Protein backbone atom coordinates (compact mmCIF):
# COMPACT_ATOMS: atom_id res chain seq x y z
CA UNK A 1 0.00 0.00 0.00
CA UNK A 2 1.20 3.50 -0.78
CA UNK A 3 2.52 5.71 2.02
CA UNK A 4 -0.16 8.37 1.56
CA UNK A 5 -2.94 5.80 1.62
CA UNK A 6 -1.57 4.21 4.80
CA UNK A 7 -1.40 7.57 6.50
CA UNK A 8 -4.93 8.39 5.41
CA UNK A 9 -6.27 5.07 6.66
CA UNK A 10 -4.51 5.50 10.02
CA UNK A 11 -5.97 8.98 10.41
CA UNK A 12 -9.44 7.73 9.52
CA UNK A 13 -9.30 4.84 11.98
CA UNK A 14 -7.98 7.07 14.80
CA UNK A 15 -11.13 9.18 14.48
CA UNK A 16 -13.07 6.09 15.53
CA UNK A 17 -10.82 5.42 18.49
CA UNK A 18 -8.81 2.68 16.79
CA UNK A 19 -5.04 3.04 17.01
CA UNK A 20 -3.11 1.41 14.22
CA UNK A 21 0.55 1.44 13.39
CA UNK A 22 3.09 -0.37 11.29
CA UNK A 23 6.07 -2.43 12.28
CA UNK A 24 8.24 0.15 10.57
CA UNK A 25 6.81 3.00 12.63
CA UNK A 26 7.16 1.13 15.93
CA UNK A 27 10.72 0.09 15.07
CA UNK A 28 11.80 3.58 14.06
CA UNK A 29 9.95 5.20 16.99
CA UNK A 30 11.85 3.00 19.41
CA UNK A 31 15.19 3.64 17.71
CA UNK A 32 14.88 7.38 17.37
CA UNK A 33 14.06 7.83 21.06
CA UNK A 34 16.97 5.77 22.35
CA UNK A 35 19.98 7.05 20.45
CA UNK A 36 22.91 6.64 22.79
CA UNK A 37 25.88 8.87 21.96
CA UNK A 38 29.50 7.93 22.50
CA UNK A 39 31.34 9.74 25.30
CA UNK A 40 33.72 11.43 22.93
CA UNK A 41 34.87 15.04 22.74
CA UNK A 42 37.72 16.66 20.86
CA UNK A 43 37.80 20.38 21.65
CA UNK A 44 35.71 23.35 22.77
CA UNK A 45 32.60 22.02 20.95
CA UNK A 46 32.68 19.16 23.46
CA UNK A 47 32.06 21.70 26.23
CA UNK A 48 28.86 22.78 24.45
CA UNK A 49 27.96 19.12 23.97
CA UNK A 50 28.38 18.55 27.72
CA UNK A 51 26.25 21.62 28.44
CA UNK A 52 23.56 20.17 26.16
CA UNK A 53 23.32 17.07 28.31
CA UNK A 54 23.08 19.02 31.58
CA UNK A 55 19.96 20.28 33.34
CA UNK A 56 19.52 23.55 31.47
CA UNK A 57 19.29 22.07 27.95
CA UNK A 58 18.62 18.47 29.00
CA UNK A 59 19.26 16.21 26.02
CA UNK A 60 17.57 13.48 28.09
CA UNK A 61 14.24 14.84 26.82
CA UNK A 62 15.14 13.27 23.49
CA UNK A 63 16.24 9.93 24.90
CA UNK A 64 19.94 10.58 24.43
CA UNK A 65 21.15 11.10 27.99
CA UNK A 66 23.03 7.81 28.17
CA UNK A 67 26.51 8.67 26.96
CA UNK A 68 28.31 5.34 26.62
CA UNK A 69 32.01 5.08 27.31
CA UNK A 70 32.39 2.17 24.88
CA UNK A 71 31.81 2.38 21.12
CA UNK A 72 30.30 -1.14 21.32
CA UNK A 73 27.28 0.30 23.15
CA UNK A 74 26.89 3.56 21.25
CA UNK A 75 24.59 4.46 18.35
CA UNK A 76 25.84 7.96 17.64
CA UNK A 77 29.25 9.61 17.50
CA UNK A 78 29.20 13.39 17.90
CA UNK A 79 32.46 14.62 16.37
CA UNK A 80 32.73 17.71 18.53
CA UNK A 81 35.83 19.70 17.74
CA UNK A 82 38.95 19.94 15.61
CA UNK A 83 40.03 16.60 14.20
CA UNK A 84 43.80 16.59 13.89
CA UNK A 85 45.39 14.36 11.31
CA UNK A 86 47.00 12.48 14.17
CA UNK A 87 43.56 11.87 15.72
CA UNK A 88 41.64 11.06 12.51
CA UNK A 89 42.57 7.32 12.34
CA UNK A 90 41.35 6.91 15.93
CA UNK A 91 38.03 8.61 15.13
CA UNK A 92 37.50 6.27 12.15
CA UNK A 93 38.49 3.28 14.27
CA UNK A 94 36.00 4.23 17.00
CA UNK A 95 33.29 4.62 14.37
CA UNK A 96 34.15 1.19 12.92
CA UNK A 97 33.80 -0.37 16.36
CA UNK A 98 30.25 0.92 16.81
CA UNK A 99 27.51 -1.58 15.92
CA UNK A 100 24.98 -0.80 13.17
CA UNK A 101 22.75 1.13 12.96
CA UNK A 102 25.10 4.01 13.70
CA UNK A 103 25.01 7.73 13.04
CA UNK A 104 27.44 10.64 12.91
CA UNK A 105 26.87 14.28 13.82
CA UNK A 106 29.73 16.57 12.76
CA UNK A 107 29.52 19.38 15.29
CA UNK A 108 31.06 22.78 14.62
CA UNK A 109 33.11 24.46 11.92
CA UNK A 110 36.21 22.33 12.58
CA UNK A 111 34.50 18.96 12.36
CA UNK A 112 32.75 19.87 9.12
CA UNK A 113 35.60 21.66 7.33
CA UNK A 114 38.62 22.33 9.51
CA UNK A 115 37.13 25.67 10.50
CA UNK A 116 39.47 28.45 11.59
CA UNK A 117 42.32 25.93 11.74
CA UNK A 118 41.78 24.68 8.18
CA UNK A 119 45.22 25.80 7.02
CA UNK A 120 47.00 24.15 9.94
CA UNK A 121 49.55 21.50 9.00
CA UNK A 122 47.95 18.90 11.27
CA UNK A 123 44.25 19.68 10.79
CA UNK A 124 41.87 17.39 8.94
CA UNK A 125 39.57 19.43 6.70
CA UNK A 126 36.35 17.78 7.82
CA UNK A 127 35.63 14.31 9.20
CA UNK A 128 33.31 13.64 6.24
CA UNK A 129 36.43 12.78 4.25
CA UNK A 130 36.57 9.43 6.02
CA UNK A 131 33.17 8.58 7.52
CA UNK A 132 29.61 9.27 6.33
CA UNK A 133 28.15 12.21 8.26
CA UNK A 134 24.39 12.33 8.84
CA UNK A 135 24.03 15.87 10.18
CA UNK A 136 26.46 18.80 9.88
CA UNK A 137 26.18 21.67 12.39
CA UNK A 138 27.92 24.95 11.55
CA UNK A 139 29.00 27.30 14.32
CA UNK A 140 32.10 28.00 16.35
CA UNK A 141 31.11 26.48 18.67
CA UNK A 142 27.43 25.80 17.98
CA UNK A 143 25.10 26.62 20.86
CA UNK A 144 23.36 23.75 22.66
CA UNK A 145 20.14 24.65 20.83
CA UNK A 146 21.96 23.96 17.55
CA UNK A 147 23.03 20.53 18.76
CA UNK A 148 19.47 19.79 19.87
CA UNK A 149 18.25 20.89 16.44
CA UNK A 150 20.77 18.57 14.81
CA UNK A 151 19.64 15.79 17.09
CA UNK A 152 16.00 16.36 16.14
CA UNK A 153 17.05 16.37 12.48
CA UNK A 154 18.69 13.00 13.05
CA UNK A 155 15.54 11.70 14.78
CA UNK A 156 13.47 12.83 11.79
CA UNK A 157 15.92 11.08 9.48
CA UNK A 158 15.65 7.85 11.50
CA UNK A 159 11.84 7.94 11.59
CA UNK A 160 11.73 8.24 7.80
CA UNK A 161 13.86 5.17 7.16
CA UNK A 162 12.18 2.21 5.48
CA UNK A 163 12.75 -1.39 6.54
CA UNK A 164 12.78 -2.69 2.98
CA UNK A 165 13.09 -1.50 -0.56
CA UNK A 166 15.64 0.34 -2.60
CA UNK A 167 16.07 3.21 -0.15
CA UNK A 168 16.50 1.11 2.98
CA UNK A 169 19.26 2.34 5.30
CA UNK A 170 22.82 1.05 5.22
CA UNK A 171 22.47 -1.30 8.17
CA UNK A 172 19.70 -3.24 6.40
CA UNK A 173 21.65 -3.57 3.17
CA UNK A 174 24.21 -6.35 3.30
CA UNK A 175 25.90 -4.95 0.19
CA UNK A 176 26.93 -1.71 1.87
CA UNK A 177 29.91 -1.48 4.23
CA UNK A 178 29.62 -0.92 7.96
CA UNK A 179 33.33 -0.35 8.38
CA UNK A 180 35.42 2.23 6.60
CA UNK A 181 39.15 2.21 5.80
CA UNK A 182 41.31 3.67 8.56
CA UNK A 183 43.79 6.16 7.07
CA UNK A 184 47.47 5.46 7.66
CA UNK A 185 50.11 7.90 8.88
CA UNK A 186 52.11 8.85 5.81
CA UNK A 187 55.37 10.71 5.37
CA UNK A 188 53.67 14.00 4.47
CA UNK A 189 50.06 13.50 5.62
CA UNK A 190 47.34 10.91 5.92
CA UNK A 191 47.16 8.20 3.26
CA UNK A 192 44.76 8.21 1.56
CA UNK A 193 43.83 11.86 2.00
CA UNK A 194 40.13 11.01 1.71
CA UNK A 195 37.82 8.07 1.16
CA UNK A 196 36.30 8.70 -2.28
CA UNK A 197 33.31 6.46 -1.44
CA UNK A 198 32.04 8.81 1.28
CA UNK A 199 33.63 12.13 0.33
CA UNK A 200 31.58 13.75 -2.43
CA UNK A 201 32.13 17.49 -2.12
CA UNK A 202 30.30 20.00 -4.24
CA UNK A 203 32.68 21.29 -6.86
CA UNK A 204 32.67 25.00 -7.53
CA UNK A 205 32.69 25.60 -11.28
CA UNK A 206 33.92 29.00 -12.36
Amino acid at each position, binding site marked *: MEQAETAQLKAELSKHGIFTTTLEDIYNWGRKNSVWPLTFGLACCAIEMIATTMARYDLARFGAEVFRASPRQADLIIVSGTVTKKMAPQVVRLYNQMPEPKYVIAMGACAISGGPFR*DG*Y*NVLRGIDRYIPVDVHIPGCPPRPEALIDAFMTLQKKISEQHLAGEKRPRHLDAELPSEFPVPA*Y*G*EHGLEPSENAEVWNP*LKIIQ
Partner: protein
Amino acid sequence: MNGQILNVEQVKAAIEAAVPDCQLEILVNGSPSGQHSIVLDNAHALEIARFLRNDSSFSLDFCSNVTGVDWLDAEVSEKIKTKKIIDGVETEVEEIKKTVLPGRLEAIYHLFSMEKKHGPVILRLRTGNRIDQISVPSLTPVWRSAEFQEREIFDLYGIVFEGHPDLRRLLMWDEFKDHPMRKDYVAPAEDDDLLAPAGNPADQSKG
Protein backbone atom coordinates in the same frame (compact mmCIF):
# COMPACT_ATOMS: atom_id res chain seq x y z
CA MET B 1 70.29 41.92 42.18
CA ASN B 2 66.94 40.89 43.64
CA GLY B 3 63.91 41.56 41.46
CA GLN B 4 65.94 43.33 38.80
CA ILE B 5 66.29 42.86 35.11
CA LEU B 6 69.76 41.54 34.51
CA ASN B 7 72.09 43.66 32.47
CA VAL B 8 73.07 41.62 29.45
CA GLU B 9 76.58 43.11 29.34
CA GLN B 10 77.20 42.07 32.93
CA VAL B 11 75.91 38.56 32.26
CA LYS B 12 78.19 38.28 29.24
CA ALA B 13 81.18 39.48 31.24
CA ALA B 14 80.45 37.02 34.04
CA ILE B 15 80.14 34.11 31.60
CA GLU B 16 83.38 35.07 29.87
CA ALA B 17 85.16 35.18 33.23
CA ALA B 18 83.81 31.78 34.26
CA VAL B 19 84.07 29.93 30.96
CA PRO B 20 87.29 30.81 29.19
CA ASP B 21 87.51 30.58 25.38
CA CYS B 22 83.76 30.86 24.90
CA GLN B 23 82.54 32.93 21.96
CA LEU B 24 79.57 35.10 22.94
CA GLU B 25 77.69 37.66 20.94
CA ILE B 26 75.02 40.04 22.18
CA LEU B 27 71.99 40.34 19.92
CA VAL B 28 70.35 43.68 20.59
CA ASN B 29 66.57 43.83 20.68
CA GLY B 30 65.56 47.28 19.51
CA SER B 31 61.96 47.09 20.72
CA PRO B 32 60.79 48.90 23.89
CA SER B 33 61.04 45.65 25.88
CA GLY B 34 64.78 45.72 25.27
CA GLN B 35 65.18 42.01 25.90
CA HIS B 36 68.64 41.51 24.49
CA SER B 37 69.86 37.97 24.04
CA ILE B 38 73.21 36.23 24.08
CA VAL B 39 74.24 33.95 21.23
CA LEU B 40 76.29 31.06 22.60
CA ASP B 41 78.82 28.96 20.78
CA ASN B 42 77.68 25.36 20.64
CA ALA B 43 80.95 23.95 22.01
CA HIS B 44 80.58 25.73 25.35
CA ALA B 45 76.78 25.96 25.60
CA LEU B 46 76.32 23.18 28.14
CA GLU B 47 79.12 24.50 30.33
CA ILE B 48 77.68 28.02 30.21
CA ALA B 49 74.19 26.71 31.05
CA ARG B 50 75.54 24.85 34.09
CA PHE B 51 77.34 27.99 35.23
CA LEU B 52 74.22 30.16 34.91
CA ARG B 53 72.15 27.67 36.88
CA ASN B 54 74.68 26.93 39.61
CA ASP B 55 76.39 30.28 40.13
CA SER B 56 75.06 31.82 43.34
CA SER B 57 74.74 35.34 41.90
CA PHE B 58 72.66 34.19 38.89
CA SER B 59 70.98 31.01 40.13
CA LEU B 60 68.86 30.75 36.96
CA ASP B 61 66.90 27.73 38.12
CA PHE B 62 63.84 28.07 35.87
CA CYS B 63 63.76 27.64 32.09
CA SER B 64 60.34 29.04 31.28
CA ASN B 65 60.32 28.72 27.53
CA VAL B 66 62.25 27.21 24.66
CA THR B 67 61.32 28.08 21.13
CA GLY B 68 62.68 27.82 17.62
CA VAL B 69 63.21 30.24 14.77
CA ASP B 70 63.84 29.48 11.12
CA TRP B 71 65.99 31.97 9.25
CA LEU B 72 66.03 31.58 5.49
CA ASP B 73 68.97 32.81 3.41
CA ALA B 74 68.63 36.56 3.40
CA GLU B 75 70.23 39.37 1.46
CA VAL B 76 70.97 42.39 3.60
CA SER B 77 71.75 45.69 1.97
CA GLU B 78 73.48 48.37 4.01
CA LYS B 79 74.16 51.95 3.12
CA ILE B 80 77.71 52.85 3.94
CA LYS B 81 79.02 56.38 3.88
CA THR B 82 82.59 56.58 2.76
CA LYS B 83 84.80 59.51 2.03
CA LYS B 84 86.30 59.55 -1.40
CA ILE B 85 88.37 62.07 -3.20
CA ILE B 86 86.54 63.07 -6.33
CA ASP B 87 88.16 65.68 -8.54
CA GLY B 88 90.54 66.55 -5.77
CA VAL B 89 87.72 67.34 -3.33
CA GLU B 90 86.93 65.04 -0.43
CA THR B 91 83.20 64.22 -0.57
CA GLU B 92 80.95 61.78 1.24
CA VAL B 93 79.58 59.05 -1.02
CA GLU B 94 76.85 56.56 -0.13
CA GLU B 95 77.49 53.02 -1.27
CA ILE B 96 75.09 50.10 -0.97
CA LYS B 97 76.82 47.00 0.31
CA LYS B 98 74.97 43.74 -0.13
CA THR B 99 75.76 40.73 2.01
CA VAL B 100 74.05 37.33 1.98
CA LEU B 101 73.33 35.95 5.41
CA PRO B 102 73.24 32.15 5.21
CA GLY B 103 70.09 30.50 6.55
CA ARG B 104 70.13 28.84 9.93
CA LEU B 105 67.90 27.49 12.67
CA GLU B 106 67.85 28.90 16.18
CA ALA B 107 66.76 27.60 19.56
CA ILE B 108 65.98 30.29 22.12
CA TYR B 109 65.91 29.74 25.88
CA HIS B 110 64.24 32.11 28.38
CA LEU B 111 65.72 31.71 31.85
CA PHE B 112 64.54 33.09 35.18
CA SER B 113 65.57 32.69 38.78
CA MET B 114 62.88 31.73 41.28
CA GLU B 115 65.36 32.16 44.10
CA LYS B 116 66.68 35.59 43.13
CA LYS B 117 63.44 36.73 41.48
CA HIS B 118 65.25 38.02 38.44
CA GLY B 119 65.32 37.41 34.73
CA PRO B 120 64.93 36.82 31.94
CA VAL B 121 68.29 35.86 30.55
CA ILE B 122 67.80 34.89 26.92
CA LEU B 123 70.16 32.45 25.27
CA ARG B 124 70.31 31.58 21.60
CA LEU B 125 71.84 28.51 20.03
CA ARG B 126 72.42 28.47 16.29
CA THR B 127 72.85 25.65 13.83
CA GLY B 128 75.45 25.81 11.06
CA ASN B 129 72.85 25.84 8.30
CA ARG B 130 69.34 24.56 7.56
CA ILE B 131 70.29 21.38 5.68
CA ASP B 132 72.97 19.16 7.16
CA GLN B 133 74.51 20.97 10.12
CA ILE B 134 71.32 21.08 12.14
CA SER B 135 72.40 20.04 15.59
CA VAL B 136 72.86 22.09 18.75
CA PRO B 137 73.61 20.80 22.25
CA SER B 138 70.57 19.94 24.34
CA LEU B 139 70.13 21.90 27.57
CA THR B 140 67.68 19.33 28.98
CA PRO B 141 70.42 17.88 31.25
CA VAL B 142 70.55 21.33 32.91
CA TRP B 143 66.88 22.33 32.83
CA ARG B 144 64.46 19.39 32.78
CA SER B 145 61.62 21.69 31.71
CA ALA B 146 63.27 22.00 28.29
CA GLU B 147 62.67 18.32 27.50
CA PHE B 148 59.26 18.50 25.78
CA GLN B 149 59.93 21.92 24.28
CA GLU B 150 63.13 20.69 22.65
CA ARG B 151 61.16 17.70 21.34
CA GLU B 152 58.59 20.10 19.90
CA ILE B 153 61.35 22.14 18.21
CA PHE B 154 62.87 18.93 16.84
CA ASP B 155 59.44 18.00 15.51
CA LEU B 156 58.45 21.32 13.96
CA TYR B 157 61.82 22.86 12.98
CA GLY B 158 64.07 19.83 12.65
CA ILE B 159 66.81 20.94 15.03
CA VAL B 160 68.62 17.90 16.43
CA PHE B 161 69.42 18.35 20.12
CA GLU B 162 72.62 16.42 20.91
CA GLY B 163 72.44 14.87 24.36
CA HIS B 164 68.63 14.95 24.65
CA PRO B 165 67.49 11.87 26.62
CA ASP B 166 64.43 11.07 24.47
CA LEU B 167 64.43 12.94 21.18
CA ARG B 168 61.23 11.86 19.41
CA ARG B 169 58.54 13.80 17.61
CA LEU B 170 56.05 15.33 20.01
CA LEU B 171 53.05 16.59 17.98
CA MET B 172 53.31 14.83 14.64
CA TRP B 173 53.51 11.07 14.23
CA ASP B 174 56.86 9.27 14.03
CA GLU B 175 56.52 8.43 10.31
CA PHE B 176 56.11 12.11 9.39
CA LYS B 177 59.12 13.44 7.48
CA ASP B 178 58.54 17.20 7.20
CA HIS B 179 59.07 20.06 9.63
CA PRO B 180 55.88 22.13 9.38
CA MET B 181 57.07 25.32 11.08
CA ARG B 182 59.92 25.83 8.64
CA LYS B 183 59.27 28.76 6.36
CA ASP B 184 59.69 26.72 3.19
CA TYR B 185 57.22 24.01 4.31
CA VAL B 186 54.53 23.30 1.74
CA ALA B 187 51.42 21.41 2.83
CA PRO B 188 50.40 18.40 0.71
CA ALA B 189 48.60 19.49 -2.45
CA GLU B 190 45.66 17.14 -1.85
CA ASP B 191 44.37 19.51 0.80
CA ASP B 192 43.54 22.19 -1.78
CA ASP B 193 40.28 21.01 -3.26
CA LEU B 194 37.05 22.97 -3.56
CA LEU B 195 38.36 26.41 -4.31
CA ALA B 196 41.56 25.55 -6.11
CA PRO B 197 41.51 27.26 -9.48
CA ALA B 198 44.76 26.54 -11.26
CA GLY B 199 46.93 29.50 -12.04
CA ASN B 200 46.33 33.17 -11.47
CA PRO B 201 42.74 34.12 -10.51
CA ALA B 202 43.11 37.34 -12.52
CA ASP B 203 43.60 35.33 -15.73
CA GLN B 204 40.44 33.33 -15.09
CA SER B 205 38.22 36.38 -14.73
CA LYS B 206 39.29 37.50 -18.21
CA GLY B 207 38.54 34.18 -19.84
